């Protein structure tokens, strides 16, 4: 699948763009012969205001965008999203896979000059694992933590033990952004540290202006390799058009852009000298969930037939301008769990009709709608409002289904209303999307034990073979074996079609060409992996009003 779809996507790109950029895995904006230099102010965009500067209380990835500058995680994830040294220089995993021993970098200090101690790591772990702290983003990864056996062995060695051995555990330590106990233990942990930050990261907080901007400045006393850029201003710009305009006039240096802007402006000669357009595939996909408890969708032949009525190729060409991939199965090509031998479903309404007939669905009364035992084939497809793309996809699907005699009704709901119904199993079919974690473990989505309210297996999928593979996959500590298990699982899921997988859309970005050293990491794009944004540099430290802005930042 990988090869054929890839070649096809490139072909579409060529039709659209003529001089489309090749899809090299690494996009390096560094000019030949230029040496990185220190200094300058980088202006970044935050799509939403952050919830908290306390990384344990983060509620979205935007909190993390800021936290990367101020805190250092116990381990980093490199451009391949594999574990790399962070605050811990090295680690060992016990033979039973339950105990991790981390050796902290002895030079590491917090922004207040105090050294990072093993006790700080234990403190952060305790806060993370305490449900009362409500660590929304990170708590789930430490539910199996055995606090009685988690302790500081000495000032720079931490032992962390879990009640069960899970292969996905190591990556979770990427979410442990270590807090200094001597600061965060004084006062109310949940209320007093949302607008201040003391971390061991390469930058210190200069100022936070809630709803508007956050300014961080490089630490002179940073213990690791210092980043190049002196000051980073993170501006909250919610509206996408405003952000695009701000990038055009140089008020911000980078922003995500929508597909329409990408298609329209990518070859705009006036912008080319100043803006670079980048595109990459993230760990996310869109899919249609079929409620497995509904008699209509219990038969996998029916689910497959419905999937064959979704014209994914036209959707990609028309709605995404060729900037998305067809999907079939839970894993995306950026993950090592991906199985390249699984092909996407073919668009084949006639074949779908035949397949439905073998499952007992025929138009026996000649009214144009398929029926079985007197029941017409009719269902409601729930979509979440606010996305014109989702609506267009649902409408195209609805049109094709109608031609083969299946009546789909569309119900547009707002996010919370839709999710509440879906998690309660109170839906028939729904067009949704997932953001995936760096570790591919699909346990909460497809294991038979994870039906709501326990997990997010709201398609009520329960296949003994899939269950076995999922259990093996999360316990197998050997990477190559684990990849094999997940590739098998990928094929099983594609065979069973608990979802109709639709597309893996690509993320589009513009970045000002003055920003150098920009590289792409696998699955996460331009930043959040290591070193990512900490390796960017600016060749000319001043630009327009920047000296004043930087001075203003220092003054406040």
């Amino acid at each position, binding site marked *: 699948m990988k090869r054929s779809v890839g070649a096809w996507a490139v072909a579409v790109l060529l039709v659209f763009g003529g001089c489309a950029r090749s899809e090299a895995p690494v996009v390096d904006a560094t000019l030949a012969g230029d040496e990185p230099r220190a200094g300058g102010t980088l202006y970044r965009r935050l799509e939403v205001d952050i*919830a908290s500067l306390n990384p344990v*209380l983060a509620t979205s990835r935007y909190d993390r965008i800021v936290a990367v500058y101020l805190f250092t995680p116990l381990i980093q994830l490199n451009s391949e999203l594999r574990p790399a040294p962070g605050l811990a220089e090295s680690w060992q995993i016990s033979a039973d896979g339950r105990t991790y021993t981390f050796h902290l970098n002895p030079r590491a200090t917090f922004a207040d000059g105090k050294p990072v101690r093993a006790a700080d790591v234990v403190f952060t772990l305790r806060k993370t694992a305490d449900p009362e702290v*409500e660590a929304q983003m990170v708590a*789930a990864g430490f539910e199996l933590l055995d606090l009685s056996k988690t302790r500081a062995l000495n000032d720079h060695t931490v032992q962390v033990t879990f009640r069960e051995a899970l292969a996905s555990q190591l990556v979770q330590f990427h979410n442990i952004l270590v807090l200094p106990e001597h600061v965060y233990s004084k006062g109310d942990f949940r209320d007093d540290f949302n607008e201040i930050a003391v971390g061991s990261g390469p930058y210190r907080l200069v100022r936070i202006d*809630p709803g508007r901007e956050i300014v961080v400045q490089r630490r002179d006393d940073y213990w690791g390799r210092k980043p190049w850029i002196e000051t980073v*201003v993170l501006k909250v710009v919610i509206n996408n058009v405003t952000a695009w*305009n701000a990038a055009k*006039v140089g008020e911000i240096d980078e922003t995500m852009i929508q597909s329409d802007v990408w298609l329209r402006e990518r070859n705009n000669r006036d912008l080319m000298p100043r803006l670079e357009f980048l595109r990459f595939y993230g760990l996310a996909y869109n899919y249609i969930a079929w409620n497995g408890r509904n008699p209509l969708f219990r038969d996998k032949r029916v689910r497959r037939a419905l999937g064959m009525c979704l014209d994914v190729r036209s959707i990609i060409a028309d709605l995404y301008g060729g900037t998305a991939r067809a999907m079939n199965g839970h894993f995306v090509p950026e993950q090592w769990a991906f199985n390249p031998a699984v092909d996407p479903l073919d668009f084949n309404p006639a074949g779908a009709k035949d397949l439905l007939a073998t499952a007992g669905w025929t138009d026996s009364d000649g009214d144009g709608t398929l029926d079985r035992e007197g029941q017409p084939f009719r269902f409601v497809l729930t979509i979440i409002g606010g996305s014109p793309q989702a609506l267009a996809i649902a409408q195209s699907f609805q049109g094709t289904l109608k031609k083969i005699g299946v009546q789909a009704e569309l119900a547009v709901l707002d996010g919370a209303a839709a*999710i509440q119904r879906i998690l309660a199993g109170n839906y028939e079919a729904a067009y949704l999307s997932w953001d995936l974690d760096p570790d591919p473990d699909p346990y909460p989505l497809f294991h038979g034990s994870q039906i709501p309210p326990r997990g997010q297996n709201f398609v009520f999928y329960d296949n003994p073979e899939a269950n076995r593979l999922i259990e093996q996959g999360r316990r197998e500590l050997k990477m190559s074996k684990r990849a094999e298990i997940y590739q098998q699982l990928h094929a099983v899921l594609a065979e069973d079609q608990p979802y109709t997988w639709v597309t893996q859309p690509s993320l589009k970005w513009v970045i000002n060409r003055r920003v150098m050293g920009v590289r792409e990491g696998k699955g996460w794009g331009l930043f959040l992996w290591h070193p990512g944004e900490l390796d960017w540099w600016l060749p000319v430290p001043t630009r327009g009003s920047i000296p004043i802005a930087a001075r203003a930042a220092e003054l406040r």
Partner: protein
Amino acid sequence: MRAYIVRRLIYAVLTFVGITVATFALIHSVPGDPVTLYSGRLHASPAVIEAIRREHHLDEPLPAQYLHWLRGVVSLDFGRSIDNRRPVTAEIVRRLPNTLLLNGLALALAAAIGIPVGLWSARRPGRLLDRATAVTFFLLYSLPSFWVALLLMQWLSVRLGWLPLFGMTGADYELLSGPEKLWDRARHLALPVITLTYGQLAIFARFSRSAAYEVIRQDFITTARAKGVGEGSLLWHHTLRNALLPIITLLGLTVPYLISGSVIVEEIFQWDGIGLLFFDSIRGRDYPVVMALTVVTAMATLLASLVADVLYAVADPRVRVEGRRR
């Protein structure tokens, strides 16, 4: 007069309680609660979901939840946002002046242009000025504000670079002198104020026109004109005073809008106001924020209609007499 005000005050308190009960019931009857969006995420923690529910009393019956909330409000504590843990009162106090400034200016501008135009057109209905302003204002009224906002931004900020793109102040605001600060704020206000104003011109102009038109046709105006009262004086002293009641009503009705803000304009121009807060809190089912904003808006609306009622009495003696008779 005093009895009239006291009676209006009692009504106001009862209305207030009614509004909070109704809003509370309404927001809780919408499917989903503050943890729904979180619980739909990959790797949501059931223990955390339960902790959030417990902390915010979401696991208790609705009347108990309402009493928890009411207990806080009585001591002027609206609690903390479930989303970002900011104290709700402080958040509103921080944002409200921004929205008031923006919407107040837009309202004042719309009234300052719309009302005189309306009065003037009422004097000669059907004439060129009347028709031209009617067509223009209705045309403006029908233009969607997000479109106008983006168009203005494209031309005045991106192409010509005359006005800032977004935000409330420039990056170097703190370094500016007093007059420079004022100028900086004015430049940032220009586009959002224009966007909020143009659509309201029609409302003010047509409303004051029809109010004045009713008055102008009456005998005492004819008499005044026959006595030789000048046209200007006729309009401002005789007509306006009598046409004031519906205009006061209109102004009173615009107050909630003054406070609740505009989501579209605040989002496009990144204006740190109440509109965005309202929108986000409803979408995230952030009950404490939704309730606090409703209460503030309801109180302002009640206060405004109270003031409007009192102003009626000031403007029209008949209202006072009726009040005394009871």
